[in-house]
């Protein structure tokens, strides 16, 4: 039996229900393949498939923003007041950024030279990007933005919303023109909890309670506080992590929603933190692109 005849017989038999079963079996095989067998090619296939859909998704996002404008536009107060409040929050963030930077410098005095170089020429590039797609099938809250390697976007680049809220980080393998962003609610973050109405400039940042926030179901975080320092609902969590570049440090991420007792450690407490803003509700974000030498 020659090869041509063999394939002719195979294809003549692969019709109807047999073909359906074959395709289903193939899909099951692909579904249980380990990541190392899928990762090298499925991502590329997905990037190719998404190309014709991106303009439609972009159009859809524009229509969505027309139908349901971003929440800020619904604020009944005078726009000037809203803008001033946002500016105040931004300056608070800048203030906290500088204080946390100073704290880091005190701790890492041995590396003063390297830090000075970074501060002197931080070279962080801020790139505005549009959200061109959200993930409707999964609850991960992933979004696609129209900025990629061509714009200098790199993995773990901080994605900023509302001026100073860390909305998420760029996932691995950003594409040439489109990148996938992992929302902050899916990341474990080191934070400090600050009063909502501002801080005492005389107090050292380490006087405020710090914790590691771990993501839990429902898009919230939970963190353990071992010290007996005062914690109140409504306190603002600011990032102290170094993993997402210097820009992310000091940014707001969430607000303390509940303070719970820690059953395992009676003297400790547990805080439940809710995000200040949802990345999937945004239409425009800012990506902080670190210079190559400063990338985490």
């Amino acid at each position: 039996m020659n090869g041509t005849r063999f394939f002719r017989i195979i294809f003549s038999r692969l019709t109807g229900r047999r073909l359906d079963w074959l395709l289903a079996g193939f899909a099951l095989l692909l579904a249980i393949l380990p990541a190392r067998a899928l990762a090298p090619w499925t991502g590329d296939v997905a990037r190719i498939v998404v190309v014709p859909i991106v303009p439609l998704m972009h159009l859809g996002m524009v229509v969505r923003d027309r139908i349901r404008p971003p929440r800020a536009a619904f604020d009944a107060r005078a726009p000037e007041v809203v803008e001033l409040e946002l500016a105040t929050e931004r300056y608070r963030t800048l203030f906290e950024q500088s204080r946390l930077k100073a704290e880091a410098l005190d701790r890492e005095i041995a590396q003063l030279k390297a830090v000075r170089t970074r501060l002197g020429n931080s070279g962080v590039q801020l790139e505005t990007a549009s959200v061109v797609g959200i993930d409707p099938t999964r609850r991960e809250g992933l979004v696609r933005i129209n900025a990629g390697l061509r714009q200098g976007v790199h993995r773990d680049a901080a994605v900023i919303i509302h001026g100073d809220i860390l909305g998420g980080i760029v996932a691995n393998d950003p594409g040439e023109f489109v990148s996938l962003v992992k929302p902050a609610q899916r990341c474990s973050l080191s934070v400090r909890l600050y009063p909502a109405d501002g801080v005492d400039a005389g107090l050292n940042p380490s006087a405020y309670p710090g914790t590691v926030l771990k993501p839990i179901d429902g898009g919230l975080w939970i963190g353990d506080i071992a010290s007996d320092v005062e914690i109140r609902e409504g306190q603002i969590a600011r990032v102290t992590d170094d993993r997402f570049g210097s820009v992310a440090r000091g940014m707001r991420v969430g607000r303390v929603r509940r303070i719970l007792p820690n059953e395992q450690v009676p003297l400790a407490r547990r805080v439940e933190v809710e995000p200040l803003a949802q990345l999937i509700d945004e239409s425009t974000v800012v990506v902080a692109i670190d210079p190559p030498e400063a990338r985490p």
Partner: protein
Amino acid sequence: MRWAIYILAVLVAVAIDSSLGGVLKIGDAQPRFLACVVVYAILSAPRAYAVRIAMLAGLLADLLSPTIRPDDSQLVVIGPWTLGFALGALAVLPLRSLLYHRNPISSGFATFVFSLLAAIVFVAVWVLRINLLSDESPSWWPGTGASEVWHQSKVAIANGVVAIPTVWLLDRSRGIWGFSTAKRLVHGAARETV
């Protein structure tokens, strides 16, 4: 059935789900137009194609739903939605003879059944994957599989509701889909006039 029209409709549905669909979100349940388009096609296309057209849409859903791995790299797993849509199609096929498939309300019910079964298979495949490959984290992490089924049940209800106007609209464009229509011959006067 014209495959090009079907593929185009599926692409448009996916694009709407990924952007405009968020407007219709109630709580955390966002309806999916993709399910409506697939069910409309399953109810109207030849039976032999039903599973294949559902799997094609499922493949697209898989490709556009990357998951994030513990090392922060993205991974596209092909299969969970493909198989889910296939089983959904197998569940809807017997309903063709029970339902008047050009009635939007019966399409809404079929969409609910389709979405629910597709979601159950999706969760089951992921559970199988987690058990076989211990380093994988499911897309619904840090929730549980049961919470995901509950969430997807709400999405299935939303899909069923959205399917009623969507299928009605799709039925307006029935002519371009190229579905074969069988006409019943009537004895008597009508036949005599031919």
